[in-house]
């Protein structure tokens, strides 16, 4: 880079002339204007173009120059050339695109203060000024904290002789404008980063939503297929039961069919659920009870808590099978042949503890039933084995209570399971 040529400060002749004729009044007036200019600059700090326009106009009027340009450094804009922030007067905007202006901007790199150049001197800067048909010019770097934001060019100064005393003031004004440009640059940069990040997040979110939709479709298909397969198993057992002449075999097969049906209903509820992962136990139990209608008439009364009781599949399948066993048992044993009576189903969740119970007003329990190890009181009962196993799986407790069969004081039987939601989800 060429060294600065013939600056106003470096010119002893001019310096002498200024010392001989001080312009203290002008300086004072300019300094008074300084605070007004700073205020004006900052009032439009959110719009660097407006700030630059303001300063360019004010300086042109105060100092007297044909054209004032505010250019932004390419390091800040990531472009190849200095960019025009402001040209005053606006009709001379095209000057900003002159290649000599770009050269002046480049040559001003390394300046730490405002300088005045004559176009008649030797060197690159005067040569560039001549190409612009400019006489003397003022070049002021716009920098703050060591970061160069751009440059202020005042081309064809009307009178370069009286500027020395206001150069410091100009430097300070340039610093304020540089700050405005820097803030604008940071803000723009931040906006770009935010916009880019937002776009990335949007893309990520779209991908996630697409993936979730695909997951839902796949889950739905899985539940559908499981349900269909269970329906086929159900059909096979039903057909097998109906083709058998052995009443015991028929009963066993129909019980198996009913168990499969109770599981298939869970998958039906899952398929219908919004999140495809939880089952409303109350709605499920209602459907299960409806399925028993031919055996029960209208004897089953369902008492559910208000609102849904949502359970994940890991809990809903055991619950469904347990309720199925309780209901089958109650319908078969609670009332003697020909007798009718109510069967009540209770479903309730309180503080994370889920209680299921099936009770009747029937003939009560066989002697010794329900006391001690349940499996030992009725060995060989698949239903009880299943219930005990499922209760263990739920980490719950099974309670069987009721009057003993044959007692005068008959108050039926109650089969209840209680388990905590905690540890399962």
């Amino acid at each position, binding site marked *: 880079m060429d060294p600065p040529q013939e600056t106003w400060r470096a010119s002893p002749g001019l310096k002498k002339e200024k010392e001989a004729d001080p312009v203290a009044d002008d300086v004072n007036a300019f300094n008074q204007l300084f605070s007004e200019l700073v205020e004006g600059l900052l009032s439009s700090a959110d719009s660097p173009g407006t700030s630059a326009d303001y300063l360019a106009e004010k300086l042109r009027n105060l100092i007297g120059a044909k054209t004032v340009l505010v250019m932004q450094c390419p390091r800040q804009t990531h472009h190849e050339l200095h960019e025009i922030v402001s040209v005053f007067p606006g009709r001379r905007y095209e000057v900003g695109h002159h290649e000599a202006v770009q050269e002046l901007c480049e040559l001003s790199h390394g300046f730490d203060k405002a300088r005045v150049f004559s176009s008649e001197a030797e060197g690159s800067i005067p040569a560039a000024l001549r190409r612009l048909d400019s006489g003397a010019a003022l070049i002021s770097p716009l920098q703050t904290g060591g970061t160069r934001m751009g440059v202020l060019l005042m081309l064809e100064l009307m009178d370069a002789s009286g500027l020395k005393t206001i150069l410091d003031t100009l430097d300070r004004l340039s610093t304020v404008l540089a700050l405005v440009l820097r803030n604008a640059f940071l803000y723009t940069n931040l906006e770009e980063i935010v916009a880019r990040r937002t776009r990335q997040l949007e893309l990520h979110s779209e991908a996630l939503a697409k993936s979730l939709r695909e997951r839902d479709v796949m889950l739905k298909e899985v539940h559908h297929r499981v*349900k269909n397969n269970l329906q086929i198993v159900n059909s096979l057992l039903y057909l097998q039961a109906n083709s058998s002449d052995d009443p015991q075999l028929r009963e066993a097969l129909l019980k198996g069919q009913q168990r499969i049906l109770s599981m298939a209903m869970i998958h039906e509820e899952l*398929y219908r659920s919004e999140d495809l992962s939880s089952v409303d136990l109350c709605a499920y139990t209602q459907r299960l009870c409806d399925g028993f209608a031919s055996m029960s008439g209208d004897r089953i009364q369902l008492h559910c808590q208000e609102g849904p009781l949502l359970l994940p599949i890991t809990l809903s399948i055991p619950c469904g099978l347990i309720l199925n066993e309780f209901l089958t048992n109650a319908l078969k044993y609670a009332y003697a042949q020909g007798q009718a009576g109510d069967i009540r189903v209770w479903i309730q969740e309180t503080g994370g503890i889920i209680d299921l119970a099936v009770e009747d007003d029937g003939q009560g329990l066989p002697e010794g039933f329900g006391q001690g190890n349940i499996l030992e009181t009725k060995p060989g009962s698949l239903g009880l084995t299943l219930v005990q196993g499922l209760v263990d799986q739920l980490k719950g407790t099974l309670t069987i209570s009721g009057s003993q069969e044959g007692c005068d004081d008959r108050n039926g039987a109650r089969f209840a399971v209680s388990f905590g939601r905690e540890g399962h989800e």
Partner: protein
Amino acid sequence: MSRSLEVMIVEDERLISIMLCKMVEKLGHHVCACASSASDALGYLEHGRPDIAFLDIHLDGEQDGISVGKALREKHQVPFAYASAYTDPETRNRAMETLPVAFMAKPIDIESLRKACNSIINT
């Protein structure tokens, strides 16, 4: 014994079709036709007239059970019920627009069939 109905089963899964036939017979009704596709079902309807039809929605071939339901409603005036594993709201709403007597979600139990048949007998 209440009135015995002539029942048409339209179901592409053979085992389920057989089970439905057995259940219908167990309820005291007669299965007059078993079809696995919409075209088979519509072919039968050219000469036969069931009292009620049970329709799966997903069927062999290009047409689904809902197109059969539409034809039963508009052309043949035969009441029908859907028996389908596709119970999502979109399919269900499309099916309900054809005004079936029931929409039964698989797995089907004999009680659902009984209710649907009784709704025809009692009208």
